[in-house]
């Protein structure tokens, strides 16, 4: 298939294809991080993850409208404030949901699947009633549109670079919080042995609530970032949920590193295959590969060694 193209063309395509893969990787990591914390660390199967993302997207949309109407001069920087607000809104909703719903289900983790799925339906209908059934368009500041012109045939999308930087930043923050901070140690202690953690004086209820809130907050930031590359509608969250679970389960539920490794392998496979065959076939082959590997390694790529 490459016979018709010059060497220069091919070179730039490989570069851009590399970027496409990296962008997909960042998107996967960003959407899976929140779930990795909730599902991986707490064992809660959060089917409403996509809806928490879309809450972030709607917050971004509202912020954008607010700035356009009242503070047009500051419009170019609104996105940063929008992401913070998205984190706060989704995190707060997450903590509320944990308090009302999830904390009663820690002993029945499979039931969280049903409860959060119901929650996702309720949230979708709530968005539909509040924001309308139609999709909304989030207007971006001029500097976030378009692409960086590297050479005549190589162009790098700015929003892709933005997502990449954001992903790195959030991953570093999460890793620091989970593995270096006192609070992170408490989270991991609760995950490993709830009763024992309580016995040594950790307020397990509080830890649960903040962990769930953090996971949902990160989902909100992801949703906010995805307004640049995807749609914002009541059911847009559903577009991400399958891929998100795929990444987390494939990576090994309890491991952040696993999530990153799995996002990397899935995104690279997908993006490379997409280039050589049609999009649908690429998806099928990627899923087949994941299923095959999970049959050999049911615990996922990386798993904590725990005594069962």
């Amino acid at each position: 298939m490459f016979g018709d193209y010059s060497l220069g063309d091919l070179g730039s395509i490989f570069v851009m294809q590399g970027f496409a893969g990296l962008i997909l990787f960042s998107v996967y990591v960003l959407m899976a991080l929140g779930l990795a914390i909730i599902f991986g660390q707490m064992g809660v199967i959060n089917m409403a993850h996509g809806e928490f993302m879309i809450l972030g997207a709607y917050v971004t949309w509202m912020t954008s409208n607010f700035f356009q109407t009242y503070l047009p001069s500051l419009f170019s920087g609104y996105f940063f404030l929008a992401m913070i607000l998205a984190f706060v809104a989704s995190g707060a909703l997450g903590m509320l949901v944990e308090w009302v719903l999830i904390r009663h289900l820690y002993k029945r983790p499979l039931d969280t699947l049903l409860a959060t799925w119901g929650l996702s339906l309720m949230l979708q209908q709530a968005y539909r009633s509040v924001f309308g059934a139609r999709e909304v368009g989030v207007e971006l500041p001029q500097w976030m549109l378009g692409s960086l012109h590297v050479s005549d045939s190589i162009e790098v999308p700015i929003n892709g670079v933005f997502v990449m930087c954001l992903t790195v930043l959030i991953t570093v923050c999460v890793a620091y919080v989970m593995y270096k901070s006192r609070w992170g140690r408490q989270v991991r202690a609760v995950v490993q042995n709830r009763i024992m953690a309580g016995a040594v004086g950790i307020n397990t209820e509080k830890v649960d609530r903040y962990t769930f809130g953090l996971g949902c907050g990160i989902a909100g930031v992801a949703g906010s970032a995805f307004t640049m590359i995807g749609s914002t509608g009541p059911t847009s969250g559903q577009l991400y949920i399958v891929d998100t679970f795929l990444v987390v389960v494939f990576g090994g539920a309890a491991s952040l590193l696993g999530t990153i490794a799995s996002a990397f392998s899935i995104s690279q496979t997908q993006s490379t295959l997409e280039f050589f065959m049609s999009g649908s076939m690429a998806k099928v082959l990627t899923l087949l590969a994941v299923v095959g590997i999970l049959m050999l390694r049911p615990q996922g790529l990386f798993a904590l060694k725990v005594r069962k």
Partner: protein
Amino acid sequence: MSSNKSGVLMSDEANKGLLSPLRRKLLMGMAAVPAISMLPRASFAQTPATSAVNTTGLAVTDTEVTVGILHSATGTMAISETGSIEAEKLAIEQINAAGGVLGRKIKFIQEDGASDWPTFAEKAKKLLVNDKVAAIMGCWTSASRKAVLPVVEQYNGMLYYPTFYEGLEQSKNVIYTGQEATQQILAGLDWIAKEKGAKSFFFIGSDYIWPRTSNKIARKHVENVLKGKVVGEEYYPLGNTQFNSVINKIKLTKPDVIFTDVVGGSNVAFYKQLKAAGIDLSKQALLTISVTEDEIDGIGGENIAGAYACMKYFQSLDNPNNKAFVPAFKKMWGEKTVIGDVTQAAYLGPWLWKLTVEKAGSFDVDKIAAASPGVEFKGAPEGYVRIHENHHLWSKTRVGRAKLDGQFELIYETADLVEPDPFPKGYQ
């Protein structure tokens, strides 16, 4: 409105067909005593007896007739179907304000298909069997229509289906008020080939029946008629949000025209990423058959400005019917609502049904099905439409160019109405 005129004419014809001797005597009596028309029930003169216009037990009374509205008000498809619901309600309200159908006000029962195809079939059955509606305005996706089709055929209902679709279907019980594939695609391809001298085409669509069938027709047309070349044909699963790889392929193959039928949330992602990848739609020709004003709301005008869309209706159309329709729609549903191609086609449904009922002089489904061919609606916002023998509409094909404000600028329209051809020879 011109339709009123034909409405009166047709109900006169209907009166001729009355069978009941009592009714005839009554009418003669009324003709003999003009003063009687001053009485409150004067309109009775134009209202034929229920027993005469409804021989199959539909929900028709002396003052009311019930129709069903069957769309997704919840679920994924609510994004698209909301506009159709709104248009149908507007049409019904306008028809009622103008005197109703055969002297009867239209009452509607709205059911929610919930974006779930079995639910559509179940609700259609409920409307036909329990509510005995005289007609159903409804369905949007081909999948929902395919689910409802056996039901309306079994219980002999009448469905007015608004969406442009892939064709390859025809039923006595369905009137297709949108375009079938050849009506939508061929004229647009001809135009862009002539206008841009386009020879190479890159197809990209969502992976289901409509884009695949449409692209099949488009490919045959490009290869056999336009003598051009299809340099790529790509499909992505519904809901896909990452298009960077295919955009790279487009950059590599440098087609004259990108021809797209990506739908739903994917649409938004596709255009945002196209723009971000530095493809400038003012230089790269892109022809879409899946983006209407409704979709641009979500995509954002700045991401798609410059693209061409091939439709039969644009909100910006400059004709007297549309100039009345757009403000009426906005008055009912809010200043900010936009009107896309399918919304307009949905608006045609109740009107075409009313005109057909008046032509047939009856609410009976068999008579309506037989009377449909030839029914013309001069008040259509798209200009003028007429029902073909095959229950599709004669309508024009138009090409519009997307502007920053989310509206289309009309660039081209076919001189004549395009004949609907749901089973195109040489394209299968």
